[in-house]
């Protein structure tokens, strides 16, 4: 007989490891899962063939200004980086190779937010209190949007309707990419919006705020009052939606604040029902749902990557980092997870199929 615990317990094995010189700021898989890229606070960008981990990694950039963000375009053809020297660099992918397409210079600014349009080759990023939008095939700047209130703290595209959102002090502003000149819609936020996330079905917009609250708006909302979720131990540090899953009407929302994680599920009667995931001893540095699944992972300053079965029950804890974990990302379709550490380590783990019990994949 197996209890519930042994049913959900998973075994993961380290399948790849690489060492950068400093804090790994991001690990990202290409959409086809063939490439894993990572960047660091020392300015390195490393590319690894995701389908053949035995191949040696290739460096797209060596030492330089700290890189905060890396992102693949929706079609997977472009890779962009933003750094603290104010450079936005865009590479074009040719097979497993990358060719530098352009460098957009905004020296003196920290480029901390990069978001690709969900279908077009449009790249939005922060430049102080503005959002700039580049069309990368023509290498032209198509919009320069003034957020006004403060530096832009977060950027997000709506998945279907072409709207571009930016969050910061006291508001979220929403611009229409079909008419950049039109005045943005302003959504008031009591303190500051630090993280915004649109659900993949485009139905909800969630904002993680400085005043320890989350605001959730329904996009086509008959009800003008957003949901307010509060009672968090600190500001909202991370906010992610799951994919739209089979047999559910709404995706799940996960939030992190200090060392606590809460997974929220829409419940028509009570609004949003919470599930607390409590196992990190220090601040949570990254969270992610596995694409198309309810499986969830979190990385913490406590040096643990936790894998949560069904976004509820702890299934596995990975402790390979020498100090803290800093970032993580799921492989788009394999049972594989990549994470980076504060001391420059990058890891890839894969699940070993359980010989006992009945895994719920």
């Amino acid at each position, binding site marked *: 007989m197996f209890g519930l615990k042994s049913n959900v317990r998973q075994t993961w094995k380290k399948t790849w490891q690489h060492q950068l010189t*400093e*804090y790994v*700021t991001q690990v990202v898989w290409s959409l086809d899962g063939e490439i894993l890229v990572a960047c660091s*606070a020392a300015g390195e960008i490393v590319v690894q063939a995701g389908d053949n981990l035995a191949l040696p990694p290739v460096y797209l950039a060596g030492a330089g*200004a*700290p890189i*905060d963000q890396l992102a693949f375009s929706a079609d997977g053809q472009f890779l962009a980086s933003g750094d*603290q020297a104010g450079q936005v660099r865009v590479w074009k992918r040719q097979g497993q190779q990358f060719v530098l397409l352009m460098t957009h210079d905004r020296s*003196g600014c*920290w480029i*901390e937010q990069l978001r690709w349009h969900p279908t077009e080759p449009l790249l939005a990023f922060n430049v*102080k209190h503005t959002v700039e939008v580049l069309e990368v095939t023509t290498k032209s700047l198509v919009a320069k949007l003034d957020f006004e209130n*403060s*530096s832009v*703290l977060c950027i997000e595209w709506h998945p279907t309707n072409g709207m571009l959102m930016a969050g910061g*002090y006291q508001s979220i502003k929403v611009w229409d990419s079909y008419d950049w000149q039109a005045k943005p819609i302003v959504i008031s936020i*009591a*303190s*500051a919006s630090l993280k915004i996330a649109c659900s993949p079905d485009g139905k909800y917009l969630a904002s993680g705020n*400085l*005043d320890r609250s989350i605001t959730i708006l329904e996009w086509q909302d008959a009800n003008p009052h957003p949901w307010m979720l509060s009672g968090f*131990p*600190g*500001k909202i*540090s991370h906010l992610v939606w799951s994919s739209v899953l089979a047999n559910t009407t709404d995706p799940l929302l996960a939030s992190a604040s*200090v060392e606590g994680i809460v997974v929220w599920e829409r419940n028509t009667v009570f609004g949003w029902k919470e599930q607390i995931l409590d196992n990190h*001893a*220090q*601040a949570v540095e990254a969270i992610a749902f596995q694409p198309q699944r309810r499986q969830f992972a979190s990385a913490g*300053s*406590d*040096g*643990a990557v936790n894998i949560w079965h069904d976004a509820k029950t702890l299934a596995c804890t990975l*402790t390979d*980092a*020498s*100090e*803290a974990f*800093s970032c993580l990302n799921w492989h788009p379709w394999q049972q594989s997870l990549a994470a980076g550490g*504060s001391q420059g380590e990058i890891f890839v783990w894969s699940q070993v199929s359980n010989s006992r019990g009945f895994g719920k994949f």
Partner: protein
Amino acid sequence: MAVNLIEDTVPVTVLTGYLGAGKTTLLNRILTHEHGKKVAVIVNEFGEVGIDNQLIINADEEIFEMNNGCICCTVRGDLIRIISSLMRRRDKFDHLVIETTGLADPAPVIQTFFMDEAVKSQSFLDAVVTVVDAKHIWQHWEAEEAQEQIAFADVILLNKIDLVDVENVNELEQRIRSMNAMAKIYRTRNAEISMDDLLGVKAFDLQRALEIDPDFLGEDAHQHDETVGSVAIVEPGAVDGQLLNEWLGFLLQTQGADIFRMKGIVNVQGEEHRHVFQGVHMLFDGMSDRRWRKDEVRKNELVFIGRNLDEAQLKGEFRKCLV
């Protein structure tokens, strides 16, 4: 794997002072001095640090107020963003200096270190250092910012003393002392000061003894020309812990906007340990400290620095807490 938080937190010095007082000179001194510390600096837009260093970051002051209008919830949004990012490279530096603009109110900077849990877990305030232009301060004396910068300081540099005569400096020092009874005051030219007096001061460390200038206590009557001033209370005896708590709570609720800083060591009845506390506006932090020594006279020492403080009221109310 558990990160040692004490070892990993970075001390932060906040540098304030009017435009032209000598902040940049002091900053350059910190950056070039051989003190064995690797220093990262966050400068405001107008700062012109003459040193090329990847850990000098330009920031625009962004004041974030919460909707509830509470003064203690006002923080520096830019610092929250920059410090979190900077801490990823914490092995690259072991001290952080934040320069504010000449017209800045230091409170939001200080409050950021109490309010933001990410900033708080990775760094701690070492001291607020204010540079005062001994020659030109008289022109800005009425400015609220100048008074606040003095009132919030742990270390004050009376700079450019070579440009004024001694009587003038004496008068200035006395005036500043009446405003801030806690700060250490140094007379300098060209912002020349020993780095030991500047970095590693631990002024916000609760376990560090409260220091009230004996001269301040010795004076019978304090001249309060300014609306900003200090009130020191030194009383023997023991206090009723509950009464004291209730009083401080009420005081911060009703006068917290006018109380810039406060510190205290109190003798709570029935306790073998000293109780220490500090406050910045309505933010309050207190703890049980070391045991009273056998040969030590148990007493209560409190200092309030703020605007329009009523010495008689504070002393009277405190005495009501005595057993």
